């Protein structure tokens, strides 16, 4: 991925190319023009007099536009070129490419300019698993356009190459024969448009409407940043990180077919540009104090797709919030269950958590009223459909054994849930953080029932159930000899006893007995878990611990942002500041863009956070992490119609102000001064 460029426009249309702008997809090189999980262009090669060009510089400052400065030549040694080429590509409903050729000689030059075009119409799932196509390809030339097509029964996808000035159009590309005067220039514009047939028509109309000049788009991005609170700080690095997060969130915006004019956060660029229950909810929670409309769209879009029936292929139950939505060929032919797929155990309780948090910030009771049915159905799902062990705990086990997900919590890799000795438990699995989310969902559901839905009896019932769950949880999950909560319970009640960061999420949910919180924090901030940059997913010394194991030792920024929030909830403000300081310093090492995860090595050993190689960047919940950390450090908490500000900042941040925080109070400013010495975060002094 590292050598490739990605461009995108507010949605799931994006281009991945090499540094000359060429696309030449292969099994190991997933470049192309993608839209709705389908590759619409797998080859797009610019040839000048039969030869490919070399990149001098690439300017990709805007996420939707890239300028490639190219010259002829073989590549290794640069010789003064007699010709330069400027290739400007803007992504919209496909992409628009403007080519300018500059002749630097004092005599005319004849050029044969060709663009080779081809498409394999691969589904993203096929790109990943290298599967064979079942339909037929066709090419045709129509009204001066080259049309590349693919057809399987009623499924039709087409790519339209529009080249108005082309001298020749053939089955494999378009060609221009031009003569450029001495020191003259020649330009042409091309368009490559994707056609999804009927399903895309609404969406394409919206995309066409939003297709404006690059400068108008830049103004749109400026507006987006302007609408968010402005941050002033004595630390330039934090200002940079904040700015980066806002720009990346703009790039991660995704619109569904039913709400083409509203955006929600997709999970990651480029391969996860779609609606994900968990990722969209988590990112919406993180960005609520900054860009609350993302949460509103997420709640509506997920509510619209909430499960209503029992469907084993899609792991769907009534009330369940979807995990992932896809639009490609394999989903269309029900060879994959993603229309949408529901195999996710945490998105459903988290949906209710987001709904309550959204109302607490915005006061938008209208939306909360309109989603009452969905919220009640989500709460009902917890007890009615997700108590698979029959012990009153939320657990998961897939019913689609072929293409469903085995681990349906956020740590979804095969070895993430284990005993201290590394043994993997059986199914169903009741991981601990799910119980915290269920508790929080019921407490927050109760508040909404009382204050918005005017159903005090339901509120009482939920609070009673939540109190009951909390009491049982603190008894059944507590590992006495280690003084922490087990990662999960087996069906027979045994503790799956690895020490993991999941216990931090429990603080956030509020399910931990006050008397047990200090012990939990001691683990989180102790040397086995806190690396100096952040809290590891799994403690050093556990059987499966590996500092570069995906969920068994790496540090996840999103995970840490929720743990910091949890630390604040239980009054451990200094520890929260220490976690924030570590993650934000790591962010600075990555130019303000936090990766999904980085190595769990001791900070003193590596001096620099070691990035875990992942396919997507930016990743939405990593992008949201600095936002939640800023909220946490400033101690922002909506209470009634007021916003409480209770800053506890690391000493490195001398001064921090966040201006125009939007909410039910109108707009409010928050200020803070750094006082906490985070050099020794393990001293468990409490400020309160």
């Amino acid at each position, binding site marked *: 991925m590292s050598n490739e460029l990605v461009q995108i426009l507010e949605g799931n249309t994006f281009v991945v190319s090499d540094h000359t702008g060429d696309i030449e997809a292969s099994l190991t090189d997933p470049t192309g023009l993608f839209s709705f999980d389908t590759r619409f262009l797998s080859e797009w090669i610019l040839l000048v007099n039969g030869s490919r060009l070399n990149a001098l510089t690439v300017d990709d400052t805007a996420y939707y536009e890239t300028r490639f400065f190219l010259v002829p030549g073989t590549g290794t040694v640069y010789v003064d070129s007699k010709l330069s080429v400027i290739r400007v590509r803007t992504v919209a409903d496909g992409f628009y490419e403007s080519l300018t050729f500059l002749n630097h000689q004092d005599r005319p030059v004849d050029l044969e300019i060709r663009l080779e075009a081809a498409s394999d119409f691969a589904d993203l799932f096929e790109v990943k698993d290298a599967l064979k196509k079942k339909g037929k390809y066709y090419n045709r030339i129509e009204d001066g356009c080259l049309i590349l097509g693919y057809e399987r029964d*009623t499924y039709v996808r087409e790519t339209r190459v529009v080249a108005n000035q082309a001298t020749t159009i053939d089955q494999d590309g378009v060609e221009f024969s031009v003569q450029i005067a001495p020191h003259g220039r020649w330009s042409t514009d091309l368009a490559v448009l994707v056609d999804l047939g009927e399903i895309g028509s609404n969406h394409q109309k919206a995309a066409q409407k939003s297709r404006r000049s690059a400068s108008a788009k830049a103004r749109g991005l400026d507006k987006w940043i302007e609408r968010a609170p402005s941050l002033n700080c004595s630390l330039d690095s934090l200002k940079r990180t904040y700015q980066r997060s806002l720009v990346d969130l703009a790039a991660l915006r995704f619109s569904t077919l*039913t709400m083409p004019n509203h955006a929600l956060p997709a999970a990651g660029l480029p391969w996860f540009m779609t609606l994900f229950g968990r990722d969209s909810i988590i990112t919406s929670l993180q960005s609520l104090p900054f860009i609350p409309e993302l949460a509103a769209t997420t709640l509506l879009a997920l509510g*619209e797709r909430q499960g*209503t029936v029992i*469907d*084993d292929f899609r792991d769907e139950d009534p009330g369940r919030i979807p995990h992932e939505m896809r639009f490609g060929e394999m989903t*269309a032919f*029900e060879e994959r269950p993603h229309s949408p797929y529901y195999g996710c155990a945490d998105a459903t309780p988290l949906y209710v958590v987001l709904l309550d948090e959204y109302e607490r910030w915005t006061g938008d009771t209208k939306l909360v009223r309109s989603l009452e049915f969905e919220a009640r159905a989500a709460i009902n799902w917890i007890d009615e*459909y997700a108590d698979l062990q029959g012990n009153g705990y939320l657990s998961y086990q897939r019913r689609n054994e072929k293409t469903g997900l085995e681990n349906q919590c956020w740590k979804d890799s095969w070895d993430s849930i284990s005993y201290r000795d590394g043994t993997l438990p059986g199914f169903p699995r009741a991981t601990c953080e799910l119980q915290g989310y269920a508790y929080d969902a019921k407490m927050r559901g109760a508040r909404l029932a009382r204050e918005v839905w005017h159903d005090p009896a339901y509120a009482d019932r939920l609070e009673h159930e939540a109190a009951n769950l909390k009491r049982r949880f603190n008894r059944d999950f507590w590992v006495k000899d280690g003084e922490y909560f087990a990662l999960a319970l087996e069906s027979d009640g045994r503790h799956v006893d690895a020490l993991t960061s999941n216990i931090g999420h429990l603080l956030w949910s509020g399910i931990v007995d006050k008397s047990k919180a200090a012990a939990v924090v001691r683990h989180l901030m102790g040397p086995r878990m806190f690396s100096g940059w952040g809290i590891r997913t799994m403690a050093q010394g556990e059987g499966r611990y590996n500092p570069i194991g995906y969920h068994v030792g790496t540090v996840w920024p999103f995970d840490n942002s929720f743990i910091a929030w949890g630390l604040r909830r239980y009054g451990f403000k200094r520890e929260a500041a220490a976690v924030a300081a570590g993650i934000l310093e790591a962010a600075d090492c990555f130019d303000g863009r936090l990766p999904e995860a980085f190595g769990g090595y001791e900070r003193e050993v590596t001096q620099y956070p070691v990035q875990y190689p992942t396919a997507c960047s930016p990743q939405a919940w990593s992008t949201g992490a600095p936002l939640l950390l800023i909220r946490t450090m400033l101690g922002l908490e909506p209470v009634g119609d007021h916003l409480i500000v209770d800053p506890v900042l690391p000493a490195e941040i001398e001064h921090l102000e966040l201006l125009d925080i939007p909410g039910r109070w109108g707009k409010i400013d928050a200020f803070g001064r750094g006082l906490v010495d985070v050099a020794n975060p393990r001293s468990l002094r409490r400020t309160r």
Partner: protein
Amino acid sequence: MITRSEPRQKAVDAFFADIATRGKIAVLGTTSGTIRFDISNADSLEHWYVTVRKGEVAVSHKNTRADTVCELDKGLFEDIAEGRRQAMSALLRGALVAQGDMSLLMSFQRLFPGRIGSKGRVAPISEVAQDR
């Protein structure tokens, strides 16, 4: 993989008769609008109008203005109505062609059953004990 076990001539009629007689349908509690289904086979074209008013469903053949128009083969409708095929996938495939308000279709398709043969969760141990 999916076999047809029962005669299905009545599947379309049965589906519409069912939704028209269910009373207020909770999952459509905030939904309002009219969908027209144009269901065709070799020698016929049926128009079905489904009007939803906050969960109250009325079905008719009488021509009226529709917010969403869906065209599909009778065989496909029968498959969807009996859980052999899913409406959203059919839409992505182009086998179901929809025009107009997509949100309305999204809400309406909640009335179709889940995949045939689905059993749901394995009954928890305590419940099994209580039941027997």
